[in-house]
């Protein structure tokens, strides 16, 4: 596996997690045709921990509800969403009120596309955000400085979002997080549509943030990109996280991976065996009693069809499986 400066980033983790997501579930009340009301479960029993100075990648297929995890942490879910479970930030319970108080200051989101910029507002005004007149000058200077660093020319300040190229948009979005000086950065699919050069560059921004002591959550469907820069990878499957593995566990054939799904995913990559297992991810409206991977699992037993497996810590990583030790 090609490796970039992994050694420099590996730090001893003696501190507490900055963000703890404990057993959250998320569902939507929605109307289908003819106004039948249904509840759709998108996330269930999901656990997650993010540490300062580390990049945690959440990897899962597109459209599986990963973005909603980010929105749940920030407290910006739509009104028809129901969120269960609890979160902790810096040792304190992270309630909706707390989220509203600290988002933009302590927690920053890096969204995925141009749609997340106000189409009628000039770039610098958006990046600076809603600040009072007193601080405006200094933040303006900071913004210019960050833009300079990301190679965004002064004329970009006065442009509208649609006048920027995809790569420039990406840099603008990243710079919003840098300016906010947040301690927790959540990047939602920051890589699709980027060519190799831009991809490397974008990934290096996240590396920088982590090196400065931020906790970075990188939500992506690109396991390749995740492997390049993250410290840990959480595998998102059917609305939950089946395993949180350290990057080293992916070495060789992935023998050290804990969950059979993670191993199957690893084996399916084109650079590895390019071998698939049978079956499909369960659909969102399917009700599953046991382990979400039960149908496709090769090491299942009777217990697995009854109730969701307990979360276990094995070999420095987390896993939801009855049959590993």
């Amino acid at each position, binding site marked *: 596996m090609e490796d970039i400066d992994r050694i420099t980033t590996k730090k001893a983790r003696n501190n507490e997690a900055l963000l703890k997501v404990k057993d959250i579930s998320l569902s939507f009340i929605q*109307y289908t045709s*003819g*106004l*039948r*009301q249904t509840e759709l479960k998108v996330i269930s029993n999901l656990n997650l921990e993010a540490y300062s100075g580390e990049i945690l990648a959440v990897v899962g297929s597109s459209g599986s509800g990963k973005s909603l995890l980010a929105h749940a942490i920030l407290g910006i879910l739509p009104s028809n969403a129901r969120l269960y479970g609890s979160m902790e930030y810096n040792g304190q319970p992270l309630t909706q009120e707390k989220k509203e108080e600290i988002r933009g200051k302590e927690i920053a989101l890096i969204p995925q596309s141009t749609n997340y910029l106000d189409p009628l507002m000039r770039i610098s005004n958006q990046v600076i955000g809603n600040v009072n007149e007193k601080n405006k000058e200094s933040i303006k200077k900071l913004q210019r400085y960050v833009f300079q660093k990301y190679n965004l020319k002064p004329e970009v300040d006065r442009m509208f979002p649609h006048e920027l190229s995809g790569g420039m948009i990406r840099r603008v979005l990243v710079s919003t997080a840098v300016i906010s000086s947040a301690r927790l950065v959540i990047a939602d699919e920051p890589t699709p549509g980027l060519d190799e050069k831009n991809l490397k560059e974008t990934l290096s921004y996240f590396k920088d943030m982590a090196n400065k002591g931020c906790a970075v959550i990188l939500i992506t469907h690109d396991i390749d990109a995740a492997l390049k820069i993250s410290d840990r990878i959480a595998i998102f499957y059917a609305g939950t996280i089946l395993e949180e593995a350290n990057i080293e566990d992916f070495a060789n054939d992935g023998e050290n991976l804990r969950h059979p799904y993670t191993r199957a995913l690893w084996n399916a990559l084109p650079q590895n065996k390019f071998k698939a297992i049978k079956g499909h991810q369960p659909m969102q409206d399917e009700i599953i009693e046991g382990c979400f991977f039960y149908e496709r699992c090769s090491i299942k037993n009777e217990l697995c069809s009854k109730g969701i497996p307990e979360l276990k810590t094995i070999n420095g990583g987390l896993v939801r499986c009855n049959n590993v030790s």
Partner: protein
Amino acid sequence: MSTAVLTINKGLSGGLNLRQKTILLISFMSLLLLTIVICSLFINERSLSTDFDSKNLAPSLKHPFGTDWMGRDMFIRTIEGLGLSIMIGAFASLISTLISVILGLFSSVGKIADSFVSWLVDLFLSIPHLLLIILISIGFGGGATGVIIGVALTHWPSLTRVVRAEIKQLKTQEYVHISRNFGKSRWWIATKHILPHLIPKFILGTILMFPHAILHEASITFLGFGLSPHEPAIGIILSESMKYLSAGYWWLAFFPGLSLLIVILAFDMIGENLGKLMNPKKAHD
């Protein structure tokens, strides 16, 4: 693995859910309109007879809407007027829908046809609507026919515009291109791929056209065009009432107008709620 959709049933404690409320509202409103039309058909000459002993009476139990200067019961006159308005509205909406179906489909034939339709829509929208109806009804010799034709011939442009835009958008869809690549004919694509998207638009468009047509018919009649003073149209009742305003006979204007408002509101409600049933994404508030 069991496949199921969780249907939330709030049960008795939560009252009716939105779907039930919507359907109930639509049924109630439709029933109301239907009753008015049927009643208006059964009102005969006798019940509208003049009775000079009881002229200009304020509303009472016997005459809920009062009586006019000829002693006619305003409630019965109003019902009959409303029935007439709804029927004219129905006729005008159907004609206008028909025109927009034809023009919409015609616009999909080719570029020249499309620019012709778009030009025609622009032309009809360039003259103030009320003035256009006046002009057309004069062209057809005025009278009831003139007004009905005027109203029927002028309500298609907005629906045509919607349909044309929808067809245009549908034609750029990947699944339509794919169908073409499968060697399917234009006709096949039009009926199987495009039409299913258009039908709800037409149904909704027709219902939402009703209130406009009715209001325009009433307005034109009020201004003195069209229906003769003997017809019990709402517009005529109201324009007559103007003469008696300073005399303080407020009920002559108030109740008939309010009834017309309720009818219009009923159509708007039906249209809106039907829209919700067809497009549930908008049903969240």
